[in-house]
């Protein structure tokens, strides 16, 4: 199994989620994060003073899938999250050794 971690622009969340359900990915976990990268943060001005906001709000999605779905998922996320702007984000893929559904104790692919 794989764990796909995607850092995306907050307002692309619904797009991505729909794209994922289209390929049959039912669940995911979302975390509010702040990102630092190529994209320059914006500046805010208070009483004439400039403040550089370097950390940009992003959403981190964690999606556990079986091996074959993983690739589709990556493609789907890219398509749904991409606006071809700096700051669109990144996708990271990890090997997931095991998954257990707490309620039933099912493990492996059935747990997803």
């Amino acid at each position, binding site marked *: 199994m794989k764990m796909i971690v995607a850092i995306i622009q907050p307002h692309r969340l619904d797009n991505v989620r729909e794209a994922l359900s289209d390929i049959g990915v039912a669940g995911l976990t979302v975390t509010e994060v702040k990102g630092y990268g190529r994209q320059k943060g914006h500046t805010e*001005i*208070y009483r*004439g*003073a400039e*403040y550089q*906001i370097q950390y940009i709000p992003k959403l981190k999605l964690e999606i556990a899938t079986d091996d074959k779905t993983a690739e589709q998922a990556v493609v789907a996320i890219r398509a749904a999250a991409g606006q071809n702007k700096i700051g669109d984000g990144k996708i990271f893929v990890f090997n997931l050794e095991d998954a257990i559904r707490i309620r039933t104790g099912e493990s492996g692919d059935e747990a997803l």
Partner: protein
Amino acid sequence: MNAADTGWILTATALVLLMTLPGLALFYAGLVQSKNILSVLMQCIAVACAASLIWFAVGYTLAFDEGNGWIGGTSKLFLAGIDRNSVSGTLPESLFAMFQMTFAIITPALMIGAFVERIKFGAVIMICSLWLVVVYAPVTHWVWGGGWLAERGIIDFAGGIVVHVTAGVSALVIAVMLGARKGFPEKITPPHAPWMVMVGASLLWVGWFGFNAGSAVAADQNAAMAMIATHLSAATASLVWLAIEKFRFGKPSLVGLVTGTIAGLATVTPASGTVGPLGGVLLGLAGGLVCYLAVEVIKMRMRIDDSLDVLAVHGVGGATGTLLLPFLATIGYGGTGLAEGVTIGNQFLTQLIGVAVVAFWSALATIIIVLVTKSMIGLRVTNDEEVEGLDFTYHGETGYRQ
């Protein structure tokens, strides 16, 4: 005693307390980092409590008891002699003392904005307490207590000099002696809750009606004229600030607009008994512009960390209104004009002397107060405390736990 006047000043007293609690407290708390929100609220309310007792014990008598030109007498220590029949003008004297107490509360509280996020809690209490006795009480006597500036015919209706110049100048002195916040100016973080700043500013605006219109100590046309002039100055200065930000940065900010509001209110304060509606608008224009520039100069050019711009907004605003007043007394309708036989020039000179001497005394006395405090309990928190935030390190609390 006049019941109508009494009713209005009872109300005005409540409004002026509302300015500090929670108005000013929220205005300041929203401007700091979230890890210091409680420390600012705590400093405001603790200073308010201490100031109340000091005013009761010594402040009122030093300011308003008959004395010489420089300081009031001591016959009213602990409000001695004030019973249910004592009157002051058309008011029960107990009410006059109480109304003035709310001014003695907000004035030292105003200074807090200059030294937030890095000062010891004990130092705030000590400095503000000494300051109330050494700076505020005497200056109040000079201007409102029949002292030498009153003799000279100075005009300061609601406290441009007594409140804003004293607090503004002293605040800057303290900020300089304390030193800037870690990372100032490059790495300072922006206001953590602009919405809270706006709520505080709104309550200050509403409460200021009690401050300025209440200073007529009567429910009459002077109170009415003071209220409309005050309101128009606040509205105008707010729009001035909005316009400046729009043209300079393209985006007018909420924090900017409400800073303009306070600038307009501070500026009209000394003149609110003298000018009419048009005068209020002009004072708002002047106050908005001058205070905006003052923020630039002090923070950007001089790089002094008067953190929440107490001098630039309050001190400079109050002084501007005090000095412009002679010229606006007869502009448009509703102004009072100047006293019989007083020329604009004379009056301006008097006003100038008042501002200068009060500023000088405020600075001098504050330097001594700060040195004393520093030697006794120290001024500044440790680096680690500043980094961790004063809410937990000094008050053991967490501001937000959602």
